């Protein structure tokens, strides 16, 4: 992998893995959104995603690799970058020339990562356990129940909402930045910036809306 040995190669790899995660997020968001409109549709799609061999044994491993690659590379780059200035400034006005989001990708990233750990523990581990460890009978109607059950706890909804605020901050810089990284900066960049900004706000807040919706309508 000579490409990931160079600074620009790593940057491009970071951008591509980021865009891949954005695509996954869009897909995840669309399915979750179904749960607001129709219990049966949500169950159908979830059942498909949970039992289709291509999704389970091809797409899921790619996704896991993508997530691991993205945050490990993010941490590698952060370490390299902090070593590139051995003596720090006594007075450094970072906010004079760059946004908070762009300067704190590693922190928004670490919050998202902690959330992912919780999320795995909440949904993915029970799911894997159900299907592949205990091998319980298929039940195409269980998904909606499980989802609603998870959002009964207000503390969990709170943590969930907070994490998505950080995802919003991460994407406000990251999504537009990934275009620059792969070399796209031209007269369409203003349109790209508007689109990515809208995405970065609407999708994370949409997830929060779904959580609140189930929390409030569960009773």
């Amino acid at each position: 992998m000579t490409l990931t040995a160079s600074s620009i190669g790593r940057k491009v790899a970071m951008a591509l893995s980021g865009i891949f995660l954005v695509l996954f997020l869009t897909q995840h968001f669309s399915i979750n959104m179904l749960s607001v409109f129709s219990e049966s549709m949500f169950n159908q799609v979830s059942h498909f995603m949970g039992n289709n061999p291509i999704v389970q044994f091809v797409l899921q491993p790619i996704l896991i690799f993508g997530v691991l690659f993205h945050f490990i590379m993010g941490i590698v780059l952060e370490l390299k970058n902090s070593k590139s200035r051995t003596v720090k400034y006594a007075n450094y006005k970072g906010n004079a020339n760059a946004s908070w989001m762009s300067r704190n990708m590693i922190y928004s990233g670490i919050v998202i990562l902690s959330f992912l750990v919780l999320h795995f523990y909440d949904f993915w581990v029970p799911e894997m356990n159900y299907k592949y460890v205990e091998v319980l009978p298929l039940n195409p109607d269980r998904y909606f129940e499980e989802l609603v059950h998870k959002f009964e706890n207000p503390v969990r909804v709170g943590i969930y909402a907070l994490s998505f605020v950080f995802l919003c901050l991460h994407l406000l810089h990251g999504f537009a930045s990934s275009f620059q990284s792969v070399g796209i900066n031209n007269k369409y960049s203003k349109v790209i910036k508007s689109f990515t900004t809208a995405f970065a706000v609407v999708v994370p807040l949409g997830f929060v809306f779904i959580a609140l919706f189930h929390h409030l309508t569960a009773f």
Partner: protein
Amino acid sequence: MNLTLKVWRQANPQAKGKMETYNIKEVSPDMSFLEMMDVLNEQLMAQEIDPIAFDHDCREGICGMCSMFINGEAHGPDRLVTTCQLHMRKFKDGDTITIEPFRAKAFPVIKDLTVDRSSFDRVQQAGGFVSVNTSGNTQDANAIPIDKHDADKAFDAATCIGCGACVATCKNASAMLFVSAKVSQYALLPQGKVEATDRVLNMVKQMDEEGFGNCTNTGACEVECPKGISLENIARMNREYLSASLKG
């Protein structure tokens, strides 16, 4: 104006160095920042204190020698100016001003506020040129027609004075703005196309070897660059680099 200056003092590259505080009185608002430093040095010499070493040459914003990280920003609070063009009227009577050298692993301190920016020279030597045979029948550059849009962009990129403010400003001490300006200046012109593949590969390789950080697109460099070099150049270099690496 009366000012309090907190200045980085470091006797030599190995010394530890620390911030020292000096008071300076009756600074004219019309002075440039470097003239103010000259007055401070006169004052220090009169007190038999070693004057503060700082870089400068043209004092008209074209050579890129003057550096200094002033109040947390490269070349101080003003935009599109070098330190030699920064005027004391940008500050207020009674202000405390911190003055530090440009800091990056690839820009080691020589003494006080002077840093060694020869890493830039080595990046430039790795590919920032076109090879021209001086056989006596060299073609006149103006004989090749060039699209006006490309010519303008190449010229904009060529206004980079190699000052290093982009590196000093960047939270990652990345040199991408400088290197991309140098790559773009040639990549946009027919004369530069011939050596484009090796140029971008070699210059980026040298940039990495010098220990500059990785770009995270914060855009701070573009804001602090005295010549207004655009981030478009970085995107162009990324494209150039990608297509060059695919060629192998």
